[in-house]
């Protein structure tokens, strides 16, 4: 095998950040190379250099032995490099075929766009690579999995033989992931393509790659043959210290029911039915996990329970009191804390300081104010310092603007605030989205601590591993309905995947 791509001492400096620090790496022709690392480790930056979006501030890049001098996506496409971005690069109102040919449209009479030819070309690609998709469907109407296919077909249409996939499985179900891997294997085998896959899911690295490169804080800390390493080794390379993942000890027995949801109907932002007749209950001292693909009603369900979304029908009971139609504040007063899904929009006040964010919800407590109008800053700061220490928040102190912190630390601020209410009910959504492994470990420990102390926890996460690790029971949601309920230790991830796509019972029968 020959070197397809060679990075020589590549550095990339953004104002104030050294995103890539002296990276030298060769990627061979016809291999699947996995690039792993935590968020902000510089994986995407490195790949954006290869795709010509970033121009490196130092070092050289060679593609098939030729030195790259012009960094632009257009030049990269001409060199046969294709990239499927984490956030899809598709025009929603265009059809599949129109998206695929964008930038290189077939024309008739030299001027007009030839839609028929575009669809024909798409069908040919579909046939050649076995990636089934309807060329005339509008992209906004098709599923995320299909949109990803369109992305891959787009790069193939442009004649790519080097394919970069940035976090391709983040939005896929286990089944769709398997299909994607099948496609990757096929194009590598039959079309002799080179595939680079950026991920932070280590079992995927083990499943698909030939070699793996690990990045940490802008540096390439190691390149290994995948068969020579295991997940544990990779994890510790990523974090820079041993990661202990397996000692989450669950103790105690479930107590009284603390959250009860009865036949709930909720609409999404467009007014479409998102939750359709969901009933569930969570007892004290247990974690109920919700496993669902994004957009199947889990967000709306949790928003309805926490009072952030209107309930159309049904009831929510929190700690024995009817919470239906109450405001978030009233529901919190019943004994519920909430780690919201999107920390940037609903979790923190970005422009406020860490200490102000930690105070939110406790302003009225006697110890923090004098006669209800003067705030005791020194008490607030002392309290904030305490939480800052306890929750291991890392930053420039309690007066830092929250918006300037990393995702993981921002999430720590949210979790510190919510967990410090010490309420009997916790509703937690996406606790570790965009958070690195070290912080993930920390959150998991905290959540189980709360559980063992007798909290009733309702958890929703896009990370199926996380749901399995933390939950006592798991329910699957599909199109707003519960399709299954399981004890976490009595079902496998693959089986859950079937229920998440609504095919569970069918497969069983």
């Amino acid at each position, binding site marked *: 095998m020959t070197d397809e791509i060679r990075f020589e001492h590549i550095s990339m400096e953004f104002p104030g950040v050294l995103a890539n620090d002296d990276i030298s790496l060769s990627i061979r022709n016809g291999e699947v190379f996995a690039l792993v690392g935590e968020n902000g480790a510089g994986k995407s930056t490195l790949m954006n250099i290869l795709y010509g979006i970033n121009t490196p501030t130092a070092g050289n890049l060679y593609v098939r032995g030729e030195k790259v001098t012009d960094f632009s996506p257009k030049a990269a496409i001409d060199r046969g490099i294709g990239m499927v971005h984490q956030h899809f*690069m598709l*025009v929603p109102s265009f059809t599949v075929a129109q998206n695929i040919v964008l930038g290189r449209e077939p024309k008739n009479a030299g001027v007009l766009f030839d839609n028929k030819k575009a669809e024909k070309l798409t069908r040919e690609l579909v046939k050649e690579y076995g990636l089934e998709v309807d060329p005339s469907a509008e992209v906004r109407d098709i599923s995320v999995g299909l949109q990803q296919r369109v992305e891959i077909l787009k790069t193939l249409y442009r004649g790519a033989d080097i394919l970069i996939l940035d976090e391709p499985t983040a939005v896929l179900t286990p089944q769709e992931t398997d299909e994607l891997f099948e496609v990757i294997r096929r194009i590598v085998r039959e079309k002799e393509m080179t595939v680079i896959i950026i991920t932070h899911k280590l079992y995927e690295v083990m499943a698909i790659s030939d070699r793996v490169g690990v990045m940490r804080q802008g540096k390439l800390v190691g390149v290994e043959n995948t068969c020579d390493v295991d997940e544990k080794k990779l994890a510790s390379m990523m974090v820079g210290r041993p990661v202990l993942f397996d000692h989450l000890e669950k103790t105690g027995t479930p107590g009284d029911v603390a959250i009860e949801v009865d036949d709930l109907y909720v609409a999404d932002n467009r007014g*479409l039915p998102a939750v359709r007749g969901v009933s569930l209950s969570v007892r004290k001292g247990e974690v109920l996990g919700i496993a669902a693909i994004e957009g199947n009603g889990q967000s709306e369900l949790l928003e309805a329970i926490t009072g952030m979304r209107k309930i159309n029908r049904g009831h929510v009971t929190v700690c024995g009191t009817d919470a239906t139609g109450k405001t978030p504040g009233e529901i919190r007063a019943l004994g519920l804390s909430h780690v919201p899904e999107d920390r940037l929009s609903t979790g923190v006040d970005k422009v406020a300081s860490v200490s102000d964010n930690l105070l939110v919800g406790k302003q009225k407590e006697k110890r923090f104010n004098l006669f209800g109008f003067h705030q005791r800053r020194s008490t607030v700061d002392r309290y904030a310092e305490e939480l800052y220490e306890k929750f291991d928040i890392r930053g420039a102190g309690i007066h830092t603007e929250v918006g300037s912190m990393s995702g993981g630390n921002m999430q720590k601020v949210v979790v510190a605030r919510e967990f410090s209410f010490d309420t009997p009910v916790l509703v937690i959504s996406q606790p570790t989205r965009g958070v690195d492994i070290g912080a993930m470990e920390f959150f998991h420990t905290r959540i189980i601590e709360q559980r063992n102390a007798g909290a009733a926890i309702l958890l929703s996460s896009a990370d199926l591993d996380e749901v399995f690790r933390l939950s006592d029971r798991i329910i699957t949601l599909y199109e707003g309905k519960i399709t299954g309920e399981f004890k976490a230790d009595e079902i496998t991830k693959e089986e859950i995947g079937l229920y998440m796509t609504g095919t569970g019972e069918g497969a069983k029968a």
Partner: protein
Amino acid sequence: MNEFTWTNFAKIASSTLSQMLGTATPVALAALGGLMTEHAGIMNIGMDGMILMGAFVAAAVSYYLASAALGILAAMVFGIVIGLFFALFTVKLRSDEFIIGCALNTFAMGITAYLSRSLFGSDGIRGAAYLHNIHIPLIKDIPFLDNVISGHSLFVYLTWVLVILMWLFVYRTPTGFWIRASGESPETLRTAGKDPEKMKWVASILCGVFCGLAGAHLSLGKLNGTFVEGMSDSRGYIAFACVIFGAAHPGKVYLAALMFGFFSALGLQLQGIISSDLTEAIPYVITIIMMVYVVVSGQRRREHLAKQQLKKLELK
């Protein structure tokens, strides 16, 4: 009031429809430009100023050179310049589109008034070479149609051609696709190897040209070689409303402009009956109703979609 007869009615109807075409045309021309910037994702409320300056340039050049054609050409060239100017601020320097649009309108009011007064005196420009109305040979002999369709300025007919060309450009050429992509998903276009900013420049320039044409039509077509201060008379804003109402689709945008034209003409016909201050408000009131309709119908459609979706799910 005259006694009602069918001949009378036909006369009134044909003159109303004729006026509709005349009034709709400058709005439609500007809106054809505005739909380009709309597709490119630029909120362009500066059209009114572009029209006004176009009208002035056309009249002034036509006055000095005694040629309507050169006046129109000058307005188009000026449109390119003003489009470049608009793109420089909104695209390149990323200033706020709304503010730049407002600034453009205010600037246009001031500069045209200043130049017009200092060069031509307080009456504005009069007696510039203008476009004579065209009487279409065959239609000339058909009674009712003659009054409606024939006898307009060249611009009225040119607009029909431009609507079709614009539709072809937006929905049937690669450049049209790129312009739409540059507004809807610029990063997608960038990764496809095309520069979305370049597309926005193109859209902005085209918008300038169309607004220039709209202005030229006002001074040289509609008012027979006259420029008066503030003669754009908020048509740029109406054009913007038409762009939104017609979902930036050339055909629908033209229909929206016709609707505006119709109510303006109706207002004129009603002037004998109701106070003219009230009738002049009719097209603007209609514009507001149109915009409310857009919002409400959008909601209805979503609700309808929701119900259908629900039905589909219940069937499963």
